């Protein structure tokens, strides 16, 4: 049944694009119903089998000559991310209710992107996964280039070229794995149980990991993220930060680490103090955390603040992955979910609630407007969202970052310290942005009139905030899915008997 998340999104995309007439309302409603159906299916699937063990959905030969299968399946980790996609998709439609330009095209591309993202999370055949991964690139370009703002064409091109370059690396590693295993199979299960030679894993792992990590915003390949997020229309930046960056992180875990776990082993020699790819990528992740937060601290454009904060938070995901222990990895997956919701919410406040009303994102100008009084709902949402973002207890971000830090404390203690420093800087930039946007000193005496909050905005904000709080207070809801996933047979080579 989960497969219908994919099919429904594609059908919805076709329906929105090809229905005759120019009615924007029909397009919006179709998009909302489609995404709601996707979310509903995801919830039912989780409720139906909350064990987190692998569920096979479809398995049929696709290209028998090459042993490529059409294999959709889900384990706990996929389910978590499918659930996230459902949430982000619904919220994205709600927050783009006010789009007037080429509405049908917008929602068509939007649903197409959603369908491709579902596809990546549910594919258990490497080839299929890659096909969906690439399918997600094209709609991103058009969403940003057509409906975007600041330097949209540049940002869109930069984003897709980075994505495409990353996927070229992935393709190289994927083809190599296919050929070297010699099994005439691209099935993730078959490849995960095949022991590639350590020498092969040593070069295949960084290739594929970096390929995916480009999309996860790993420093120094993160530069597409802030420009892309800032230029994208609200719904697209919500999806980009909320879901698409997770595609990268998911690929790192599901493909690079699951198939080539020996690539993380020590090299046996040291270069510049590094002894293994694990250390290299952990350091890059920590640099990303601190660097993203520090740059966010000095931005003038509110959307760039949120964009760089995404880089910083995705650093936690990568750091969690590199800890290689159970709690760190679980924290990384939890952070994928948590950041997906919170980043979506932040972009919604910045792009939809504030920018669409004030037509500026400049912190200086915003501080001269009495926004907290004009749109109190936005102010409250923003405060709560930033509280969640800096990891205050009670929100999902707290659980995630705490687990990542504990995990990294076990793996490399000094990096936990630097990661903690990143959180402190995070508090600083959040404070600064918050103050400038909503609690500045209004100078304009003339009474400004802004359109009131609409119902879709309120619904979207409540949906995302509610999930963050529920999952912050009751993390077992997702942990019960993530842990069986990590302890499943697929990650056996990564665990090596037991977790480190």
């Amino acid at each position, binding site marked *: 049944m989960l497969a219908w998340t994919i099919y429904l999104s594609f059908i919805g995309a076709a329906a929105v694009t090809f229905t005759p007439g120019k009615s924007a309302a029909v397009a919006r409603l179709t998009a909302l119903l489609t995404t709601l159906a996707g979310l509903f299916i995801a919830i039912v699937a989780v409720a139906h089998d909350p064990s987190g063990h692998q569920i096979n959905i479809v398995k049929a030969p696709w290209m028998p*000559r090459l042993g490529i299968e059409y294999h959709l399946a889900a384990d706990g980790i996929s389910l978590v991310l499918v659930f996230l996609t459902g949430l982000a998709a619904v919220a994205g439609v709600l927050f783009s209710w006010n789009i007037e330009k080429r509405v049908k095209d917008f929602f068509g591309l939007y649903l197409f992107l959603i369908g491709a993202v579902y596809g990546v999370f549910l594919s258990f055949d490497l080839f299929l996964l890659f096909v969906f991964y*690439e399918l997600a690139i094209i709609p991103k370009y058009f969403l940003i280039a057509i409906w975007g703002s600041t330097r949209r*064409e540049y940002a869109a091109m930069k984003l897709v070229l980075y994505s*495409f370059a990353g996927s070229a690396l992935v393709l190289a590693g994927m083809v190599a794995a296919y*050929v070297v295993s010699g099994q005439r199979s691209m099935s993730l299960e078959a490849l995960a149980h095949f022991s590639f030679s350590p020498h092969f894993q040593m070069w295949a792992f960084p290739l594929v990991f970096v390929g995916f990590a480009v999309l996860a915003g790993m420093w120094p390949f993160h530069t597409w993220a802030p420009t892309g997020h800032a230029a994208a229309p609200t719904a697209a930046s919500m999806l980009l930060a909320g879901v698409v960056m997770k595609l990268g992180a998911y690929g790192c875990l599901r493909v690079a680490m699951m198939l080539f776990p020996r690539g993380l082993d020590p090299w046996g020699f040291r270069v510049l103090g590094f002894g293994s790819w694990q250390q290299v990528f952990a350091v890059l992740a920590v640099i990303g955390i601190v660097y993203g937060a520090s740059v966010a601290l000095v931005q003038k454009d509110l959307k760039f603040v949120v964009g760089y904060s995404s880089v910083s938070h995705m650093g936690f995901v990568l750091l969690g992955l590199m800890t290689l222990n159970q709690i760190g990895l679980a924290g990384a997956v939890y952070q994928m979910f948590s950041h997906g919701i919170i980043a979506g919410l932040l972009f919604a406040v910045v792009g939809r609630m504030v920018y669409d009303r004030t037509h500026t994102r400049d912190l200086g100008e915003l501080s001269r407007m009495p926004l907290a009084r004009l749109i109190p709902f936005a102010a409250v949402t923003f405060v709560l969202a930033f509280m969640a973002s800096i990891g205050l207890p009670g929100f999902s971000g707290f659980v995630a970052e705490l687990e990542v830090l504990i995990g990294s404390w076990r793996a490399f203690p000094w990096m936990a310290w630097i990661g903690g420093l990143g959180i402190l800087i995070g508090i600083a930039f959040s404070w600064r942005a918050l103050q400038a946007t909503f609690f500045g000193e209004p100078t304009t005496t003339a009474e400004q009139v802004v359109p009131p909050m609409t119902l879709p905005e309120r619904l979207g904000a409540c949906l995302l905030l509610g999930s963050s709080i529920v999952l912050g207070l009751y993390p077992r809801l997702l942990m019960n899915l993530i842990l069986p996933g990590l302890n499943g047979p697929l990650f056996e080579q990564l665990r090596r008997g037991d977790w480190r």
Partner: protein
Amino acid sequence: MNGSGYFALLRLTEPEIIVALTGLLVLILDLSFLRRTSLAVRFRGAVAAASIGCAVALGAIERLPAQGSWMAGMLVVNPLTLLVQAALLVLAILILLLVDSARFTRHVGEYCALMLFATTAMMLLVSTQNLLMIFITIEFLSLSLYILTGFDKESRPSAEAGLTYFLFGGMSAGILLFGMSLLYGISGSLSLGEVATAVNRSPGDPLLTIALVMVVTGFGFKIAAAPFHMWAPEVYQSAPTWSATLVASSSKVASFFALFIFFYLGLMGAAGNAARGNYSIGWAPLIAIIAVASMLWGNLAAIAQTSFRRLLAYSAIGHAGYMLIALVIHSRQSFVSLVYYVITYALATVGAFGVLAALEEERVDSIADFRGLSKRAPGLSFCLLIFLLSLAGIPPLAGFFGKFYVFASALDRANHSGLLWLVLLALGMSVVSFYYYLKVLKQAYVSEPVAGAGVIRVPATTRIALWIAAALVVLLGCLPDLLLDRIAAALH
């Protein structure tokens, strides 16, 4: 079926004879019955007759014996040649459907007849394993293409392009012939099989080395691989659109097929090895150098182009580089991947030129002319999207699978990592190619149309041809086994 009598020859060349006779028939039809009718009717009549002829030839291919040879390889019929011939005929029909809306010349019969003659030459080129026949059919093909390129008598660039093509082509033919004469001198035979035996006997012969360089150069001109590509941008840009389509699509299929057959059957003994760590001298490293040069130069120069046709020309040079990788590997699997690649590439190219043909009246040349195409002709620009993304190698379109399969066969060979450098370079260059294809799509989908630009009406036949090509590109991409199974079965 083997033999040497004329009856056997007639039997084996039935499809070619049908196509050639159709060419003559079209000529007569146009000069006699259609002479006094309007240009539209003449084009419609000639195209109808020509496409029916091609369809009949397709039927004749089905009836041919699955194996056959005439005069020890002078003419060879096997499932693979039949498959490629069928592909050439399908491409010819698609191109003829596009020609239906052409109005640039009054010499309708001659134009269609020349297209059919060129197709005949390609069909013969793929079904021979004899040096002399290869040379003659290449010349036959080239002569038709020179005339087709310069066919627009009222356009000065067209004539110039025709002359450029002729000069380069003539020179390359000389070089190729010189190389072939050396091969004949070494082996004392014109048959590729005999050449192979002689090459196996003395792979290090200096005379052979010269012959190899000559042959590679000669073929390099034909397939427009760098550094022998100089004629391509001009021909693509200035030839009548439909002639350029033929040059860019089906003639590529035939040339690449003949090239692979030539090296695979005739010169296998002197292949050498281009893999890192296993290097040995021969033509494989030479081809690898040309492949690298083509990929680099084609893709990088394409970035700077403002004319869409020139962009396609440089991208064709880049694609020639990818296809040459298959030749560097020269394994059975890589042969399958090459045939798949070149056929799907030709389909996408016919499509891209078809879009240009549909825009003929708009005088579209520069990329900026595509501005707002999605509003003015939504169907047309969707087709353009499919074709360009396929050329860029986005799954699930055919272009992606072609690249995937070429790379898979490259890594399958040579202890898995010997040719990794070539694959990584190709992947890097495909990122570059994605950039310039996307630049065109950006104009079509993102930019607003020029004020006052109306809706574009696409002629029905053009629309049919484009949708068929687009459907094939999607279908072969989603289910590549449809074609792969046939190629692989034919190869056994």
